[in-house]
């Protein structure tokens, strides 16, 4: 047997990228994986019993990444079916049949569109984060994941170009790129 040792990155290649990396008003919603842009630009957020490290990461992203865009975001003190983003964290094992970390392809975060507005845009996104992975990560890595998933709640898809937290595999970049922000501005300013 010939053995060749190759040292690979601990964060190897990830999911596909999109050329435009904006899914737009797709009309898509469902149970486990359907991306769709949000139905408005005034987003209300609620965290469901998040570990402090993810609560801090989400707060940082809302202030420093989403804040400078045309999207306003506030905490929803009376969450209901109209709350725009519901953030959850668990020790996910098989939610939606994904291979959650540390199994298989190691899913660590997921965004789902739970309901549609009459416009065909997403009324409410769920954002799920893995504690199995998060428990052992640096603040920067957790914040990068929060940034990435927050981008999905706005309709941003993956893009394998440096300079954005929407890049895959997970990078330590803690911002959207100008390209990403242009998508957000173009698609939300008029709402």
């Amino acid at each position, binding site marked *: *047997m*010939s*053995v*060749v*040792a*190759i*040292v*690979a990155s*601990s964060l*190897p*290649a*990830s*999911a*596909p*990228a*999109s*050329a435009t990396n904006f899914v737009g008003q797709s009309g*898509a919603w*469902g*149970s*486990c*994986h*359907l*991306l769709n842009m949000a139905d408005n630009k005034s987003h209300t957020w609620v965290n*469901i019993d998040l570990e402090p490290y993810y609560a801090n990461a989400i707060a940082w992203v809302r202030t420093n990444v989403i804040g400078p865009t045309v999207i306003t975001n506030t905490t929803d003190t009376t969450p209901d079916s109209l709350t725009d983003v519901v953030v*959850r964290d*668990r020790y*996910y*094992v*098989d*939610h*939606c*049949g*994904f*291979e959650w*970390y540390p199994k*298989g*392809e*190691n*899913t*660590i*975060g*997921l*965004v*789902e569109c*739970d*309901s*549609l*507005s009459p416009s065909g845009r997403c*009324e409410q996104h769920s954002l*799920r984060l893995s504690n199995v*992975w998060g428990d052992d990560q640096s603040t920067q890595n957790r914040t990068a*994941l929060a940034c990435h*998933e927050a981008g*999905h709640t706005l309709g941003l*898809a*993956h893009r394998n170009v440096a300079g954005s937290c929407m890049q*895959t*595999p*997970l990078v330590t970049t803690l911002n959207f790129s100008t390209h990403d922000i242009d998508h957000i501005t173009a698609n939300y300013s008029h709402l």
Partner: protein
Amino acid sequence: MEARSSRQARRVAAAIASLAVIGMVISGCAAGDQGRPAASASQDEARQAVFAQLELRADAGMAINVAKSLAEFLPNRLFSSEGEEPAPKAAGIVVGHVTAVSEGRAYVVVGDDADSDTEVPFDTKDPLWQTIDVTLEISQGWGEFTDASTVSFAAFVDGSEDPQSVMNNYSKLGQIIVVLGPAGDYTYDPTLYRVAGSSTLIGTVGDDGTISFPAKRELEEEFLHETPTLDDLDTAAAEDEVIVTRE
């Protein structure tokens, strides 16, 4: 209420589309029965529907151990991290035709949220997701499937899809290639294999042996760069073992 009615409308639309596909199959079966011809219109539609869903699934979140190439799933590519024994990424790779599709199970979240989804009967109303059980007649296999003639695996169905339509589509995929993770994930049938890549690694094989994984989109070229055809895959499988160590 708006969400529920939208979902029902989508299912009705999917059912109508499914009936249309069935009608096309019936009207075109004379040509389709002659051996295994190039993709028919109904096969094209079935593939389009299946891969559109797989593509959405592949782009909804963040995973950190996604394979760069199909060859990574061959039995002679071993991976290890943190001192673990080197092991293949998958049970193996199979090529073949679907011979049977049947209902699997449905899954729901009990309570507000849960670490694991709960298995319920397939016909449970408004499931989060479902499985359908697909049996493949194997024409070529690697890993655990080198000498196997058939294999059954669970395919993913999103809760927003009409499962009967999805089952119909899977039965019309023609020659496919599937990367299979270990068996044992599905308690209702421990012999079922899971599809690797969070159930997304299903592709097609052309009459000339050309492999395609449409759901990989922009990453498909890199994914198949080393093994664009079945012959290339077979050649790569015969190479010496390689151990990849992740830091």
